[in-house]
């Protein structure tokens, strides 16, 4: 996978993850172009399209579009399910995820994605394992917080 973009129905970018080195200018150009292209498509249309020399796989969940760019030999259907699994992970973590969750907790959205996909490849497909890693981190944070509080005698 070369990159993944999340954007709203209004075309606002909510999350961007690039797995190939590109300049900021190029990233902005790609984003603009793709958001436009995908938003222009009708609901019943197919989820795949050719774009430049890449294949775009996208799916809409409520007000958010999830859009991945994959290479010629990559598998479209499994990419569609990568999107779905990511949505499931967000859903499970936030408890029925909505766009605002991703805005407010953008860093969590990134951390979950990093546990699931790394370098553009699937790292861990087990929902349990991914969430375990994130929850462990959350726990770690709480423990530290508590120990800080204790040291301050609060």
């Amino acid at each position, binding site marked *: 996978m070369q990159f993944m973009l999340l954007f709203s129905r209004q075309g606002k970018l909510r999350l961007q993850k690039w797995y190939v080195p590109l300049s900021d200018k190029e990233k902005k150009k790609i984003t603009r172009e793709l958001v436009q292209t995908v938003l222009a498509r009708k609901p019943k249309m197919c*989820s795949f399209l050719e774009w430049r020399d890449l294949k775009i796989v996208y799916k809409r969940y409520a007000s958010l579009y999830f859009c991945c760019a994959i290479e010629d030999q990559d598998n*479209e259907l499994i990419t569609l399910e990568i999107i779905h699994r990511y949505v499931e992970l967000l859903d499970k973590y936030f408890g029925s995820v909505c766009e605002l969750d991703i805005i407010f907790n953008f*860093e969590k959205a*990134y951390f979950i994605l990093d546990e699931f996909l*790394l370098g553009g490849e*699937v790292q*861990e497909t087990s929902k349990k394992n991914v969430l375990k890693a994130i929850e462990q981190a959350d726990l770690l944070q709480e423990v530290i917080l508590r120990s800080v509080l204790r040291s301050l005698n609060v």
Partner: protein
Amino acid sequence: MTEGCPKHCILMCVLLISGKSKEAEIKRINKELANIRSKFKGDKALDGYSKKKYVCKLLFIFLLGHDIDFGHMEAVNLLSSNRYTEKQIGYLFISVLVNSNSELIRLINNAIKNDLASRNPTFMGLALHCIANVGSREMAEAFAGEIPKILVAGDTMDSVKQSAALCLLRLYRTSPDLVPMGDWTSRVVHLLNDQHLGVVTAATSLITTLAQKNPEEFKTSVSLAVSRLSRIVTSASTDLQDYTYYFVPAPWLSVKLLRLLQCYPPPEDPAVRGRLTECLETILNKAQEPPKSKKVQHSNAKNAVLFEAISLIIHHDSEPNLLVRACNQLGQFLQHRETNLRYLALESMCTLASSEFSHEAVKTHIETVINALKTERDVSVRQRAVDLLYAMCDRSNAQQIVAEMLNYLETADYSIREEIVLKVAILAEKYAVDYTWYVDTILNLIRIAGDYVSEEVWYRVIQIVINRDDVQGYAAKTVFEALQAPACHENLVKVGGYILGEFGNLIAGDPRSSPLIQFNLLHSKFHLCSVPTRALLLSTYIKFVNLFPEIKTTIQDVLRSDSQLKNADVELQQRAVEYLRLSTIASTDILATVLEEMPPFPERESSILAKLKKKKGPGTVTDLEEIKKERSSDMNGSAEPASVNSTPSPSADLLGLGAAPLTNSAPPPSSSGSLLVDVFSDSASAVAPLAPGSDDNFNNLSVKTEKKPHAITFSFVPAYSMFVCKNNGVLFENQLLQIGLKSEFRQNLGRMFIFYGNKTSTQFLNFTPTVICSDDLFLNHFLCLNLQTKPVDPTVDGGAQVQQVVNIECVSDFMEAPILNIQFRYGGTFQNLSVKLPITLNKFFQPTEMSSQDFFQRWKQLSNPKQEVQNIFKAKHPMDAEITKAKIIGFGSALLEEVDPNPANFVGAGIIHTKTTQIGCLLRLEPNLQAQMYRLTLRTSKEAVSQRLCELLSEQF
């Protein structure tokens, strides 16, 4: 669960979201940025929490699409925090806002190093994620050696292993030269057997990428992958617990394993092969079973595996039974209610159509595909249907397919019209049994989609009509009829003008198309046409003067009219003046000779095909034989000698590169897809008399057809060796890319400018040239040659040229040249080529002048047999003393005159400068004209240097 994001941040989010206008948002953000800046600059040291808070805000603002140019240092400080969340935010900031400041990179790398060594799996994970996210060359330099160790260490936690595998993959993609192969590779392969499916999933991606470049080294992965796959596909749907996805066992891993197997031919071991066939059959069987769930996720995951299995079957292209089954399965999908499946089925079938085993099976679906073309509501699906029709076309169904495509063209989306036109034109030509059908088809094309008919298409129809006399009368009649239409496309006027100018006489017997009627018909279109078409029509008129003497005066009147003779366009005016003069002074015999019918064009591959390939990228439009051809040429790609145009000086070529990349360069010997237009413009090879539309000027008319051999010759000397005695020129050239060099050297330093010219009209993407020093360039682990390059912009526009500078330092004497590896994406395909970079030892020569006495004194001092290397060899080039002198000077040494008692001999002297030493060199070249041989003797203080210089110089004569 929102404690990760400080409360202030949330507040700000709300403010931003509820912001009324863009201006208000920008104002709000600028205020916030100013606030953060002042906090960072303030006298009071910020505590970790505040730092985190502000860095998090900056990130948020950046992700909203605003530019952030500070905060990097604060983020880096967070990395060394012991608090997890602070560290985490620090890493996230760095991954998202990558910065190339070298001081910062040093600090970041330090922090990463500490975390990697911390043995805390959570911290190690963060550090590895950061490396994988940034993936820069600097990071590769720092960590590419370390990560394989983490990956294969026995005590590494599974989750860290997973991250390490993909981290290494990312580094390998950006800097393959920095990832050392070694013992770890065999241990990585065995990760395919790991108990933890997550580890296998991550490792399979890494192995696949490594295996693509080093197939031999990872060969053992085939049998391991097959047995792993076999265990997955035969497992019950709940065996794999959390790795089962909607009743499909480990779909991601299955897809990855099938993808890995596509790096290799079918397994040789019959047991492995049998097991794989079983797996593939099981996957095909499962497709027929009733679904275990109605959820789309179930069918998607299942079919993802199925499509990947079909890709593998097609890749192997060896089991007719499986290929036909795959085809039938896809046939079912063609009528599936899911648009996605119909799309993918059409796409996959395209590749199946090119296998000899399944071509016939694909053809049985023709009606369904034609139907898709008519009824699909999504243009991207229709596009796939066009592609498939093109791929399944052969002699038996060409007429039907071409008719359907023409039909579709009338209503087709503008975005794909040009491509359909090209495809129709190619199919019509390729499968024409009857050329009248071909002519009809092309004229139809022009009628339906004239604007999308490119020059290549109408040039081609003219080539074919001229080369086949059985179709000329029919063509003349048909264009004449087509021109009768009140509004016809300019392209039709061009074709009509050309064909009637050549063959109008064939239909002149019919009173309905008498010469005068033909002329009036064409001339009625004249004023509506653009300048090039008018120029072509004027040439048709002068041809008519020869064909139909009876209308000569009518034509002369037209040529004589003010609108022609005083035309503001120079070309039109010149043609009118010259043609008028020609028609008045030349005798009929001369006219007949000058204006003779065009001779047949040399048979050549259709330029249309080349155009389509360029449009779609090779591979997508090729048929069976072409795929095979391309496969073999792909493999030879890197070894291909650069063919260099030897007539003009290559450095001139270099300069002209930007301006006219295509015409300035000699086509490679097996060039396909040269255009008709180059027949016209290349006066040396154009053997045509007056061609309408030709750019030849009037003077050429009298010099009729003097068949010269093609003026361009190809030198097959590898470009590399040409550079031994010179510093500028073209290093490499193929149909896509030209690489030019300019370099300068002084003592042990040098600088080389590499120019990459994109010869196509399409962008190159991910363009990454890498200079690689092979192991031979190391002496006791020290690099003999120190090279520094700057990265180039990863996109190279069509026709553009980019430049890269290489700074060179010669540390000690060396034998091998560094390799320049270039990777980029062109069209849909990945291009990878390597050429030797001509940095040779002699570049670091400083010439030394000396007297005869000095020379022979030193010569004698270097009399140790190890110091002398001698080579006797046959002359490969004419033995010209002046050229020889120039070469010796170009080689870098001084040419010493009147030193050798025999004036026919050449002697030279110089010093090789390296950082560590200086090496004095003496050379003597003795030609023997009778025997056409040379004797070359090198004496230096170092055996290896004598050896190397002797090799390099011997190749030059």
